[in-house]
């Protein structure tokens, strides 16, 4: 373990980075003050509700809102006719149709109309009074159904992209991607052992506890203020504007505190509806989803089908791999098949491989990002087969991975060469962890798996203001979903050389700070953090200039050390930040600096995980009894929140592995849209999650940061499945590993050694 165990320890050379202070927004969040998406009330505010398709696939013949509009208290209704014809690129157009159906509904829960009324109860009554005539169409629910010859089409003219030559007939396959290297035949000829299997996963939801919520106040000048909970209010502005056909600047989006996102709150659902309803009604409108709406109508992660064949020689080298992957996109193209394909073999240096991936539309909600989007599904297949190969070869599964692991300078399967990475370090950390050699009890099994995620950079802006008391305000536009304000303040305190508690980090609205991309891709500490560091360094340059002016010396003779200006030869008494701030009017006015960047220096993330499970051989019930994760964080700015990211990712992965799944009935309707039957892990399902922070600093970031939010969810699916395989001597290839499935495997599966 690293610094993690002693909160008082600081990293050599750093005063603040690597410490664990209380997060700045914490007090509001433990006292109930923090305002989340649904917590705003405005004078005269109406309540909205959404009419959703009861059918998985149907043509909308007509919508009659007359009776609904006549109900007392109903102030506005919008349908597809209230929005402009979708414009922009195909993805934009699909987003517009997903936000409000036009000709067809493509899944149960697809938006058909929305109502604003003086109470939620009246709004719901109005939904019942809207008369919609549907022509119900046959539906396709899985990649197998959707790819079958003669399958009913969701989109009449959809021609598969990425095929050579392009097909002449439309299909439900939106696109195909291919990654390959070497000569597959030769690779398999070199193998002494080959494993070939097909793996499937079901759709799973991000499961954030806060349902989507938005309040819009549209004024007669054609502008609107939207207050919503999201992972990126600039993206909400841009996407809402597209649906409305507006310039984005007509919208001001104010970020509420966000109650979890995990990728699912990087797009719009309610926002444009609220804006348009508010415009029609002339009053503010609040819209909050019910939990069943969250499940049925917001984007889960793709279900997947992955067929994999992998070979290795007796020396323990993986010689070849062949992957065929199909991911459900839901109603519109856009699954994470690309990332799923690129990450599948990313941890290993394999001379011969081909990965072929398909993005397939089905009559389910349009999938959206979920933590390392696309990677867990393919890693489940790859890491299961890697585990099986190791067993067949009689090689320790960690040694087998170490032997084939990628390192700096090796070519990634998706093309470029790896820069500085810490994969082997995470494998070594697990190998030498006491957990790896601890004894197992009866009916217990141990599993290992690894995972890779790119992490992201993208665009960020930050402004640092020095206040007249010498304290700093750090303004960014990146919603804080897991403690990033603390990280921003720590880096600013480190740069400026002042106490952490003298830095106030703020997440500002779209009119108060420059553009920031979404809080996603594990990018905020890296990219927005880099913008904060840049802005601090500009402020320091200014502070040195002010000191130089005060002392009447050239600025080159002024250094910034420990929060104060010092003359290089010590000939002047140091000037503190507070002292310079106090005299700012005499030296040129208030002190403030902005920085913007399209971030460079992204460092990839790797995680290796170890789990012990116990399987009840008579019921198939699986319990996780011990879990250890080792992840390369580059450098942990606030180790507690880094651990939290590691632990949270693991537990979401455990849920995916064991019990989470969308269950559909024969009519294409979701059977379990509640937290009762969509079973995310509860506290009593879990042990403590031992989080080992590995630090291989990322040379691309001023403090060595790598994104930490996502890669932790990549290994658990296979790690748990490998542990269940060890406990039961049966190989499981279909998730979730719910008790009925595991029992069926125990009773009817093939026993393996």
């Amino acid at each position, binding site marked *: 373990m690293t610094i993690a165990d002693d909160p008082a320890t600081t990293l050599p050379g750093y005063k603040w980075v690597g410490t*664990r202070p*209380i*997060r700045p*927004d*914490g*007090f509001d*969040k*433990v*006292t*109930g*003050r*923090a*305002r*989340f998406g*649904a*917590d705003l*009330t405005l004078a005269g505010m109406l309540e909205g509700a959404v009419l959703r398709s009861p059918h998985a696939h149907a043509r909308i013949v007509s919508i009659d809102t007359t009776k609904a509009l006549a109900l007392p208290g109903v102030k506005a209704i919008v349908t597809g006719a209230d929005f402009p014809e979708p414009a922009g690129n195909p993805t934009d157009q699909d987003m517009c149709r997903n936000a409000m159906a036009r000709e067809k509904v493509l899944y149960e829960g697809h938006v058909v109309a929305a109502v604003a009324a003086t109470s939620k*109860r009246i709004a719901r009554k109005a939904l019942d009074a809207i008369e919609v005539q549907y022509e119900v169409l046959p539906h396709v629910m899985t990649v197998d159904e959707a790819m079958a010859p003669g399958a009913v089409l969701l989109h009449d003219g959809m021609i598969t992209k990425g095929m050579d030559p392009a097909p002449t007939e439309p299909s439900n396959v939106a696109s195909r991607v291919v990654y390959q290297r070497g000569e597959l035949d030769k690779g398999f000829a070199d193998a002494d052992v080959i494993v070939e299997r097909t793996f499937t996963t079901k759709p799973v939801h*991000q*499961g*954030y*506890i*806060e*349902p989507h919520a938005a309040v819009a106040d549209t004024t007669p000048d054609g502008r609107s203020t939207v207050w919503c909970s999201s992972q990126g209010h600039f993206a909400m502005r841009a996407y809402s504007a597209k649906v409305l056909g507006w310039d984005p600047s007509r919208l001001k989006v104010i970020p509420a*505190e*966000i*109650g*979890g*996102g*995990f990728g699912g709150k990087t797009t719009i659902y309610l926002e444009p509806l609220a804006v348009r309803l508010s415009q029609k009604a002339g009053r503010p409108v609040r819209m*909050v989803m*019910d*939990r069943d709406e969250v499940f049925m109508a917001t984007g889960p992660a793709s279900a997947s089908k992955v067929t994999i064949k992998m070979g290795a020689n007796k020396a323990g080298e993986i010689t070849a791999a062949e992957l065929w992957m199909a991911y459900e996109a839901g109603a519109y193209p856009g699954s994470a098949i690309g990332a799923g394909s690129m990450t599948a073999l990313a941890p290993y240096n394999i001379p011969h491989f081909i990965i072929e991936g398909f993005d397939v539309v089905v009559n389910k909600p349009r999938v959206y990002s979920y933590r390392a989007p696309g990677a867990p599904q393919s890693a489940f297949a790859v890491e299961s087969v890697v585990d099986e190969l190791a067993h067949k070869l009689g090689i320790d599964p960690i040694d087998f991975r170490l032997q084939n692991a990628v390192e700096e300078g090796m070519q990634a399967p998706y093309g470029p060469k790896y820069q500085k990475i810490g994969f082997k370090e995470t494998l070594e950390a697990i190998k030498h962890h006491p957990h790896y050699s601890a004894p197992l009890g009866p009916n217990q099994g141990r599993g290992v798996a690894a995972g890779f995620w790119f992490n992201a950079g993208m665009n960020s802006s930050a402004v640092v203001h020095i206040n007249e008391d010498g304290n700093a305000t750090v303004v960014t536009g990146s919603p804080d*979903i*897991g*403690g990033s304000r603390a990280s921003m303040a720590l880096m600013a305190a480190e740069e400026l050389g002042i106490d952490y508690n003298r830095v106030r980090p703020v997440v500002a609205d779209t009119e108060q700070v420059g553009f920031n991309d979404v809080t996603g891709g594990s990018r905020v500490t890296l990219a927005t953090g880099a913008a904060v560091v840049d802005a601090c360094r500009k402020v320091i340059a200014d502070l040195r200039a002010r000191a130089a002016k005060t002392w009447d010396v050239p600025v080159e003779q002024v250094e910034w050390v420990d929060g104060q200006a010092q003359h290089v030869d010590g000939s002047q008494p140091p000037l503190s930040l507070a002292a310079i701030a106090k005299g700012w009017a005499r030296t040129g006015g208030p002190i403030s600096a902005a920085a913007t960047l399209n971030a460079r220096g992204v460092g990839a993330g790797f995680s290796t995980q170890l789990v012990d499970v116990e399987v009840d051989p008579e019921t198939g019930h699986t319990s996780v009894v011990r879990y250890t994760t080792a992840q390369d964080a580059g450098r942990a700015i*606030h180790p*507690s*929140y880094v*651990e*939290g*990211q590691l*632990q*949270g*990712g*693991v*537990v*979401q992965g455990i849920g995916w592995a064991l019990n989470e799944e969308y269950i559909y009935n024969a009519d294409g309707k979701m059977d379990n849209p*509640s*937290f*009762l039957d969509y079973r*995310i*892990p*509860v*506290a*009593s399902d*879990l042990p*403590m*999650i031992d*989080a080992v922070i590995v630090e291989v600093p990322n040379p691309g970031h001023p403090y060595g940061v790598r994104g930490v939010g996502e890669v932790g969810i990549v290994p658990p699916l296979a790690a748990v499945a490998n542990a269940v395989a060890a406990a039961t001597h049966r190989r499981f290839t279909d998730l979730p590993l719910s008790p009925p499935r595991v029992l069926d495997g125990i009773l009817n599966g093939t026993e393996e050694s």
Partner: protein
Amino acid sequence: MARRLINCVVNGDETDFLCEDGDSLLDSLRNEVGLTGVKEGCGTGDCGACSVLLNGRVTCSCLVFSPEADGATITTVEGLADGDHLHPLQECFLEGAALQCGICTPGFLVAAKALLDANPNPTESEVRYGLAGNLCRCTGYDKIVRAVLEAAAQMREANV
């Protein structure tokens, strides 16, 4: 239908609010009393984000009809601190980074208070089962369980 006037004690204060008979206590607390620290995660009693103490017992306020609160004593997250003196659970959640997004935090704090009121010296397993009615999707529960155990220890020490 005429709205009904409910009199109750909320966080120590005599409080009245108007409701329709079918309203949930959750909605009334949020919309009529203004206590938006009480959160809705599911509306069906499955997530615990709306937990309050109703006459001293932890309850999902989404499963309570507002008229049932007439004459009741209610404690929400807003009532845990004593002025600006945080409850040990609140302190331990902050110190132990037991929250990420914070939406489930109010419900956890209220449920944990009820748990420790009934059992001042719980085991890890008792904390996990005692808080199984509160869902957290961010933390994996590790730091929450640790914070509750730490708060219990501090409270026991303070009471010695």
